[in-house]
């Protein structure tokens, strides 16, 4: 079973791959809308990738209002 730090790191790695940014440029507290310059729809696309990776389903409502990687990882962790 992963702990929250591991989950957070995997979320960051997947975001780096998905949005094609340089490794090490994202940190857990980053606001992904600002840091990546993405809109809410692009954020939703990342969720599907995260669901596949972690083998879970995240209802849209669960991630409503979430804008940083750490909180996103917490929501995922609660469903692992």
């Amino acid at each position: 079973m992963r702990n929250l730090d591991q989950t957070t790191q995997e979320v960051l790695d997947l975001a780096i791959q998905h949005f094609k940014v340089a490794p090490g440029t994202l940190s857990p507290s980053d606001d992904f809308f600002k840091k990546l310059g993405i809109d809410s729809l692009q954020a939703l696309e990342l969720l599907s990738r995260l669901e596949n990776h972690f083998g879970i389903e995240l209802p849209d409502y669960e991630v409503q209002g979430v804008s940083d990687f750490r909180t996103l990882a917490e929501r995922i962790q609660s469903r692992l």
Partner: protein
Amino acid sequence: MLDLSKYQSIGAALKDALTTFANETCLIEADRDREKERLTYKEFQNRAHPLARALQDTGFSAGDRASIIMTNQSKWLISAYSIFFTGGALVPLDYKLTPSEHWQLLKHSGAKVLITEYPIWRQLAGALEGASADNVKLVLVTEAPANADLSGAQRWEEFRCVPEPVFVPRERKDIACIVYSSGTGGRPKGCMMTHENYLEQCVALTSLYPFWPGVRYLSILPTNHAIDFMVGFFGPFTCGACVVHLRTLRPEFVREAFAKYKITYVSLVPLVLKNVQKGLQARFEELPQTKRNVLNFLIGVNKAFTKSQPRLGLSRKLLGQIHANFGGELRTIIVGGAFTEPQTLQFFYDLGIPVANGYGLTEAGTAITVNDLHPFRADTVGKPLPGMEVKIVNPAEDGVGEVYVRSKTVMAGYLNDPELTAEAFSDGWLKTGDLGRFDQTGHLILSGRQKNMIVTEEGKNIYPEDIEAVFENLPVKEFCVFAANYVWPKRSMVGEQLILALHLENNQTYTEALRNDIIARNNRLLNYKRVHGVVLLDGDFPRTASLKIKRNILAERLAQLDRSSAILPL
């Protein structure tokens, strides 16, 4: 379609629709690639009546208010129908608001009943503000896990009574819904919409964009929004059409749904429409040059033949591959909630997919103007709908002035706020606060806003007063939030931004620590509500006797500054 001129209320019309179209499919609900539910109008009635009866048995009666806070799904519509059947007034709230905002509006609306989903209730129950909304006597929660702590709520699925409910008639002038157009942080603006507002709006809209049994509407915009309530519930139901709900609005599932359910209509906000455009453009770019040339040629042919009006059959033949991506049955994309850029509208029209672009505000019902597509005009928001009187007040030399509206679809006023209501009207005309002009063919062209607010591409209305709470106790002498275009008027409906005006203490400077404090507070707001930059201002802010900031006078002072150099980006 039912003859809505014969009806007095939403409830009466929907009641008849359920029997008139008993065997037609009214709802399909899917979650990812799984279809969860498919209901005929008769089955819908069988689900709704026990709920209506159970509501009645609690004493819920004519004029009582019930709120729904839910993502789009069949239970939203079943609950709304039950409320209307029992003579209640519906308070549809945006599920994306924070628990604190929800409680504030629940209290303001005076709702006796709240119907919500378990994940939303979990957050609401955990928020302290609930204690002050003691008007909410009954909470019904959907899809709660078996052993969940419901914190005093009841399970929606078990809230049933067998005897048939008694239909409660209402009059056209009675309040059907209280729809909040803003005011989550400041002064709530609860638009009191009458049954007549909806009945008249439905007749007007369906005269241009008709529904019939077999039509499938994909419901993506939240149903609490005026557009989806009309074209994703009341409109299709009174015509025997079918509404498709998706529980997950990820782009890939939305794309799939078009083809899987042969969607006829969909409503989108500009942000989503632009996203679809980008996706298509990217795919066009990837085509080999020869295929690209063929595509461009076919688009050219389509443009030539659809100049005066859409020709769906022809467009589907010419550009079959593109139309197949949308299920092959899509007639029109309805776009609303915010201003859409003409090039996006034209892009879709050239592909043979007309976009019904319009203009409206909650206070005036769903829509004031809509493009009738005869011919398509990407540069305008269309002509006034039947029954709408629209005039331009105090026009400048170029004809641009404030848009005023008068019609049977305009709200009765703001709930519990006669002062705000009086400010919104002038001699029976609703003052929209938007600027525009009519062209020679009667199409309305919008060109800016004179009110202190912004509308995002996601269709969200943001009022500065509503977000100021997050900056409370900021270590400065005083502050005030403005829409930048209100301070420095700009002939534009896109790219609107909020700014934070700061008056620092004597000898205080704008330090990195202060900037970081502002950024941290700003980040507590949902991303679309955040301020874009800071403007530093000398001198005390002008205030009323009750110490409220005189925003209009302060805006005039700000306007003396040069916009581009005054705004310090965050």
